[in-house]
């Protein structure tokens, strides 16, 4: 087990969701679905320490490394940083050919030597998700990673997600039910726990 949410009630100025109990195991992709405002992102934020835990607790494996792909990733305007320089921040694999998937290589390779400030919203979203999924984190939190992505990029993202390996896991928040069903080992409907 990597993470265990135990009777967790979490929110900001007041509780948003809970009590919630579930565990995350190595090698699995856990999907969180539910209506807008149900508290899906808030649950991720509980793990990153940016939401307030009102009661309950989160147990983490020792030395657990977590990376969070936000719903709206931070992108400073006009930034000259190259795609590969951003990947290096998370020690992420920058060679897309390592996956042996031509479609992914075609999408990622041109972004490596492009300044992030000149990428489109979709390109930047994809690169950020790629950085998180290829980082050395044990748990990858993906919050609506398909936003702004076209069909080809969504397929590529799903492929990377399914090839994460047995040592790592992901929690995937998405409003796209088809994407959740295609790429998650199991799903939870957060609406059941909304306060």
């Amino acid at each position, binding site marked *: 087990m990597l993470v265990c949410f135990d009777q967790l009630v979490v929110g900001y100025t007041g509780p948003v969701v809970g009590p919630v109990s579930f565990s995350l195991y190595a090698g699995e992709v856990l999907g969180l679905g539910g209506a807008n405002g149900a508290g899906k992102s808030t649950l991720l934020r509980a793990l990153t320490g940016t939401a307030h835990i009102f009661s309950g607790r989160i147990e983490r494996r020792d030395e657990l490394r*977590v*990376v969070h792909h936000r719903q709206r990733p931070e992108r400073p305007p006009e930034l*000259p*940083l190259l795609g590969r*320089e951003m990947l290096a921040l998370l020690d992420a694999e920058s060679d897309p050919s390592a996956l042996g998937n031509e479609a992914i290589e075609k999408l990622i390779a041109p972004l490596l030597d492009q*300044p992030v*400030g000149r990428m489109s919203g*979709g390109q930047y979203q994809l690169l950020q998700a790629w950085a998180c999924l290829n980082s050395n984190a044990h748990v990858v939190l993906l919050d609506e990673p398909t936003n702004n992505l076209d069909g080809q990029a969504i397929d590529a993202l799903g492929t990377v997600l399914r090839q994460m390996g047995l040592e790592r896991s992901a929690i995937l928040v998405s409003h796209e039910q088809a994407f959740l069903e295609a790429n998650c080992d199991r799903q939870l409907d957060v609406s059941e726990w909304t306060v």
Partner: protein
Amino acid sequence: MDGLIIFDPLFRVPFFNGLVLAIALSAIGAYLRLRDEWLSAFSLSQVAAAGGVLALPLGLPILLTASLSAGLVALVFGLMSRVDNNHYGWTILLGWAAALVLAANTHQGSVIVEALLRGQLYFSSIYHLIAGLVLLGFVLVILPWLSSRLMTGRFFPDYFRANRMPTWHHRLPFALLVVFAVVLGTVAMGAVPAFAISFVPAWVAFVLCKGWRKALFLAVLLAVAAYLVGFSIAIQFDQPFGPTLVIVLALLAPLRLLASRTRPE
């Protein structure tokens, strides 16, 4: 060559002082722009000016009172969960007002505030130069170490908290570096020129370069070039240094038009 006043030994210390500050401020300015905190340099310089005015009535060195006041405000910023340009904007307004009100009600305060807001590079001393060299040493040693942490915090803001890593390890040294640079720049060059040299070169370099190191290098290069031209013109034609430097920096703005027309889709 003997006829050129710029080679007068009297101006050697001020020249090298300004040169060192141009390098340090422009490098720090690039990181401030990366973090979208570029306006913080101007807000801290206004606070440093207000603190500097208190030096005479308190009987303390200007560098000390300016550093303490700017450091205190930087500490408050550091303790806040989120600081944006609204906070910096208010700090500019209040810092400027405090500087002038304190100056009006303090013996010789108006002389000091005039020097801090307009700059007095020609009168900077060897002690300013030594402090500037210490600052440059810190910039060369600490910034490369801080660089990846500052960038990670910018692109993945939750990374450190999510991994239970303290953020003050990189935020505090960077804040101290900014305060040190801004105070030295304000005392030696003046509040506006110090801000201009931290702001303009990075603003131009960011759109011209592909890659962080190239942008950082270009920002410093532009700052040094603008400083050399500004200092030479000011000395040779008996012009005030601060406004001359700002005008020369403003002339760099059209370089942004050379940027690739590539636009996000």
